[in-house]
């Protein structure tokens, strides 16, 4: 018989191979028991005692979680504490016991059912899932009323894979989590608290695995691949061996990547490199700080507009967001790109018209100039926030600069607004660093002149490649012509890096190329010192750079620049880098 397979949603990544333990939460059957009038107040008292005992248990859970996982996770139980003490729950239950003269269990069940319905109707998935917290608390109260001790899982003989229909966070936190290899849940979602707890401990979780309890009952071994959302029950030995070797590889890589968290980004021969974060949402900042980036190389401010759409952010909104961003980066410089709408992003909503060729149309800095009020609002917010911090914390970058005049105009505008703000009594930076995105080939060709005007440059490779090669990567008919290794693109990039070095200004790269393991050594060899990327890519790129020698990559880059086709460059890089990439287990 071939092994049973199920699919679910992997919400905490990882792989596990082991023995399943199935835990089904059988709901307590609640009966309606009518009470004589004389017993009603006793019943109310019984309910209050059960609530008190539940709260005591929640506090115990809280302390347990705080010790095991840190204060941050203990707050989940603080919410449970508040729910258990909430008058919106307690008052209606007492009312019902008194007016309907029923047992406390029945009253709890009825009131909770109403509350759950209310939560389920909420439009926000996160809030709707909070019904789980209500159910968790109410099942604890019901358990206490029944005289139950909900602690049967606390003495697990591990290591096991826990398969459950649903797992309440209060149960999850009491588990000996060091003995749990993975969770497979039939219910639950990506933001359920059990998922959050597991993720924080690096335990793989698959949710939405319908039928997992049934299959788990009949199996002795199972494989959980939470990267792919795959579950395999009673695998054949060959498949199990394959997963075990993948698991080991994954663990080794993870340990290695954690190691570089606080290590400097420096080549074998001592060239220091700055890894910066590309940030869209403020929620990504934690990840960036965790991996110890040198700053934010690109904050895409257009997300501010998309999130608030159709409302537009005002000056205070801008200042507030940038202020928060700078504060949470703890003193590291933050480069904020003015809104780069247009192209495909929101073009019509903002410009109010359809363009035949939006990618070559009103976008980037052009759009900024065409909406002066819009642009001034953002710049004023930026300048106000910058004035509140020491110099250099906020750097402003203008997108899609295609000629020197555009950059000069933007500079002029900043100077004028700075004067306005100073006159209005705001504290301002007299020389806020201003930079240009180099993503139009014309700007790259004029790199020397750009470098004379700008305080820094940042190469946006996605657009630079598409404009240089006249290829829309999203168009399947021509997608294979989109080649980051194109010698034409490389020569443009080399020109920009050299122009920056000659003028003594920073050059960063914030496109996808900056986190491409094959391209990073080449860029390093071309002299690039600032790489901005998704924070999640930081550990991999840092490990890679620590394997490289600046001197070797430099002679490699010289040779690569002489090649004539994208294919030659690619093959050359693969050959040169095979060893370094294999060392950190990167497959290209």
């Amino acid at each position, binding site marked *: 018989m071939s092994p049973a397979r199920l699919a679910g949603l992997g919400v905490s990544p990882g792989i596990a191979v082991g023995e399943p333990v199935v835990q089904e939460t059988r709901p307590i059957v609640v009966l309606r028991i009518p009470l004589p009038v004389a017993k009603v107040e006793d019943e109310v008292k019984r309910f209050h005692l059960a609530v008190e005992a539940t709260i005591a248990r929640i506090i115990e859970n809280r302390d347990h979680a705080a010790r095991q996982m840190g204060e941050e996770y203990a*707050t*989940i139980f*603080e*919410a449970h504490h*508040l*729910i258990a003490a*909430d*008058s*919106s*729950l307690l008052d209606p239950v007492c009312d019902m016991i008194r007016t309907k003269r029923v047992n406390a269990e029945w009253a709890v069940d009825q009131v909770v059912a109403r*509350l759950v319905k*209310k*939560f389920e109707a*909420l*439009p*926000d998935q*996160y*809030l709707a899932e*909070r019904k789980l*917290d*209500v159910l968790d608390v109410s099942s604890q109260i019901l358990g206490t009323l029944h005289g139950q001790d909900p602690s049967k899982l606390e003495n697990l003989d591990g290591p096991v894979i826990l398969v459950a229909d649903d797992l309440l966070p209060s149960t999850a936190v009491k588990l000996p989590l060091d003995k749990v290899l993975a969770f497979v849940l039939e219910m639950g979602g990506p933001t359920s608290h059990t998922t959050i707890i597991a993720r924080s401990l690096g335990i793989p979780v698959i949710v939405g695995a319908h039928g997992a309890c049934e299959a788990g009952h009949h199996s002795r071994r199972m494989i959980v691949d939470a990267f792919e959302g795959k579950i395999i029950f009673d695998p054949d030995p060959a498949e199990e061996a394959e997963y075990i070797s993948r698991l080991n590889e994954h663990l080794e890589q993870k340990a290695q990547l954690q190691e570089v968290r606080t290590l400097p980004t420096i080549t074998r021969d001592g060239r220091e490199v700055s890894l910066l974060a590309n940030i869209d*949402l*403020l*929620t990504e900042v934690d990840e960036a700080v965790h991996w110890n980036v040198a700053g934010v190389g690109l904050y895409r401010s257009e997300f501010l507009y998309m*999130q*608030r759409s159709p*409302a537009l952010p005002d000056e205070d*909104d801008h200042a*507030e967001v940038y202020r*928060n961003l700078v*504060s*949470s980066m703890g003193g590291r410089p933050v480069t904020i790109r003015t809104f780069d709408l247009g192209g495909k992003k929101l073009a019509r909503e903002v410009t109010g018209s359809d363009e035949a060729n939006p990618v070559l149309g009103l976008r980037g800095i052009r759009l900024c100039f065409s909406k002066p009020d819009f642009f001034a609002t953002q710049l004023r917010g930026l300048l106000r926030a910058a004035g509140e911090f020491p110099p250099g914390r906020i750097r402003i970058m203008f997108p899609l600069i295609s000629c020197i005049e555009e950059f000069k105009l933007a500079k002029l505008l900043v100077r004028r607004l700075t004067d306005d703000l100073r006159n209005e009594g705001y504290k301002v930076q007299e020389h806020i660093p201003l930079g240009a995105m180099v993503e139009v080939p014309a700007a790259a060709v004029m790199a020397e002149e750009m470098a004379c005007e700008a305080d820094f440059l940042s190469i946006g490779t996605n657009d630079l490649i598409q404009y240089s090669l006249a290829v829309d990567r999203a168009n399947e008919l021509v997608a294979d012509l989109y080649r980051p290794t194109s010698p034409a693109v490389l020569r443009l990039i080399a020109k920009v890096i050299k122009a920056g070095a000659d003028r003594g200004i920073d050059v960063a790269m914030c496109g996808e190329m900056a986190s491409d393991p094959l391209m990073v050594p080449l860029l390093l060899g071309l002299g690039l010192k600032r790489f901005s990327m998704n924070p999640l890519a930081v550990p991999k790129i840092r490990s890679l750079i620590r394997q490289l020698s600046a001197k070797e990559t430099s002679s490699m880059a010289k040779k690569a620049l002489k090649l004539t086709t994208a294919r030659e460059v690619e093959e050359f890089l693969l050959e040169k880098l095979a060893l370094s990439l294999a060392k950190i287990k990167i497959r290209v």
Partner: protein
Amino acid sequence: MTIRELQIINKLGLHARAAAKVVHTANEFESEVFLGADGEEVNAKSILGLLTLAATQGTPLTLRVEGPDHAEAAAAIEALFRNCFGEGE
């Protein structure tokens, strides 16, 4: 009685942790504290009430405080909203 207009500026809206902070703050005062949105008003000392308000980022809220220490209570709640419930976003 104090009435104030508030706005939720943090990204996640009035989520569980933020709501818990509102309850804790409101509980420090004797006054009754209410928050209203879209014509619905809930007791700010009730986390369940606050959560079911489903107030997302940008939602305008009306704060109503009644009782002996209404001014202090209103100021404390307002400060909490202004500093994004101490969560920095």
